[in-house]
């Protein structure tokens, strides 16, 4: 093949090839491309969340009243646990970037230690998120859903530091339990293709009896007043609302109902933090693979730890997304 053109006459010119205008390796560039597209996916979700929130701007659940739990501590304490989770993720980002830095200096043992710490941080974060989900699904006070899908919650005014404060009351603390024949319908007891989820602990009638027996208890609606607090109805209005419109007892949150307010809040919470948690999980798996590659000396022989840098980019991106999820679900 002596007629093959091996020289184009453009060597050394800008268009002669061999240029690296971005001075970045192929692998890193592709990771950046992936990160941009993944960032667009996440911002699509968050923008959809913003849409729904603006649509129900006067009735959206207040995050500080929803996420108030800390393990082994039973007083409501908003923000603390999620701040801890955020700090864990930032910390694991730091150990990751330290691993990348040690990789540049070809210090294998340091890379191993920092990668290990990164993986531990990722696991703590995913575990915390699972716990957060579990408490959200379980719920704490319970509520009544109306025909129109609105949530009515219960509480009473108590004296605290000389001020009247509205304190939430759980259904189990005032509902009058009575005998009921209503049992959970399972596919084996009736038509084989229908079944239902577990029944709430109380029926609407039991809640109404309890409400009539406890004259202090008032109903709180979803609507937010000028002070940024949920509206509390008067006693007569409370009883009337529950009797006229109460349709279903709701405990906890899932994709259909949400005792804290509009079900959309729960849907977006599960979907967005779930998608983020899936990223953290896959990040941990990828980190573990690279961790073992470092241990068996793959990159030592290559004299190049760029692989650590690439998974590092992904790991930092997961942290970056969490910064936004944290703001839009817990702060704003």
């Amino acid at each position, binding site marked *: 093949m002596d007629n093959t053109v091996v020289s184009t006459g453009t060597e050394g010119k800008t268009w002669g090839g061999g240029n690296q205008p*971005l001075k970045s390796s192929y692998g890193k560039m592709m990771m950046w491309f992936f990160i941009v597209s993944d960032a667009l996916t996440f911002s699509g979700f968050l923008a959809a969340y*913003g849409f729904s*929130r*603006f649509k129900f701007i006067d009735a959206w659940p207040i995050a500080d009243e929803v996420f108030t739990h800390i393990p082994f501590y039973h007083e409501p304490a908003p923000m603390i646990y999620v701040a801890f989770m955020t700090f864990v993720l930032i910390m694991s980002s730091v150990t990751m970037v*330290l691993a990348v830095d040690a990789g540049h200096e070809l210090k294998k043992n340091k890379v191993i230690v920092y990668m290990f710490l990164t993986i531990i941080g990722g696991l703590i974060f995913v575990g915390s998120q699972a716990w957060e989900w579990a408490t959200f699904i379980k719920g704490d006070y319970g509520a009544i859903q109306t025909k129109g899908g609105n949530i009515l919650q219960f509480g009473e005014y108590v004296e605290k530091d000389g001020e009247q404060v509205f304190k939430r009351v759980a259904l189990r603390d005032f509902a009058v339990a009575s005998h009921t024949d209503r049992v959970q319908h399972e596919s084996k007891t009736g038509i084989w293709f229908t079944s239902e989820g577990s029944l709430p602990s109380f029926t609407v009638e039991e809640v109404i009896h309890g409400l009539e027996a406890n004259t202090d208890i008032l109903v709180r609606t979803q609507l937010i007043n000028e002070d940024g607090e949920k509206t509390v109805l008067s006693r007569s209005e409370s009883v009337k609302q529950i009797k006229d419109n109460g349709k279903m007892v709701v405990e906890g949150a899932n994709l259909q109902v949400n005792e804290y307010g509009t079900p959309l809040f729960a849907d977006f919470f599960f979907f967005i933090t779930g998608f983020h948690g899936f990223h953290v999980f896959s990040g941990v798996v990828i980190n573990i693979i690279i961790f073992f590659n470092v241990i068996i000396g793959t990159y030592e022989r290559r004299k190049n730890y760029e692989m650590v840098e690439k998974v590092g980019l992904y790991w*930092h991106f997961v942290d970056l997304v969490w910064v936004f999820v944290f703001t839009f679900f817990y702060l704003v």
Partner: protein
Amino acid sequence: MADHAHKLEILRGLVKFKSNTQKIWGVLILLTIVTTVEVILGIYKPHSLIQPFLGMKILNWIFIILTIVKAYYITWDFMHMRDETKALRRFVVWTAIFLIGYLLYILLQEGGYVFDVYDREYIKRDF
């Protein structure tokens, strides 16, 4: 990898670090301070910051700005965007900012409109 030089200044040269490791810890301190401020504001919600400003509470604007500050330092220092070429930086950042900003504008505008329809027109939700 010998030619791998890091830019060691943050805050426009206000703070200059001696080594890359030191810069990483410095950025961690900065991110921790910003997060702490966010958490404290989130717990106490000072009454003076609840007033609306440009369609949102001032407090929410503060949260969003602080978030963008954090995002900047994560991208620039942890993801080493500071050390990449200007062209790569612009491809990534401007593309994302343009598309995300556009999407946010459209969806939030529409969400506000749907709220107005529910609020003012003849659709009953209170039952």
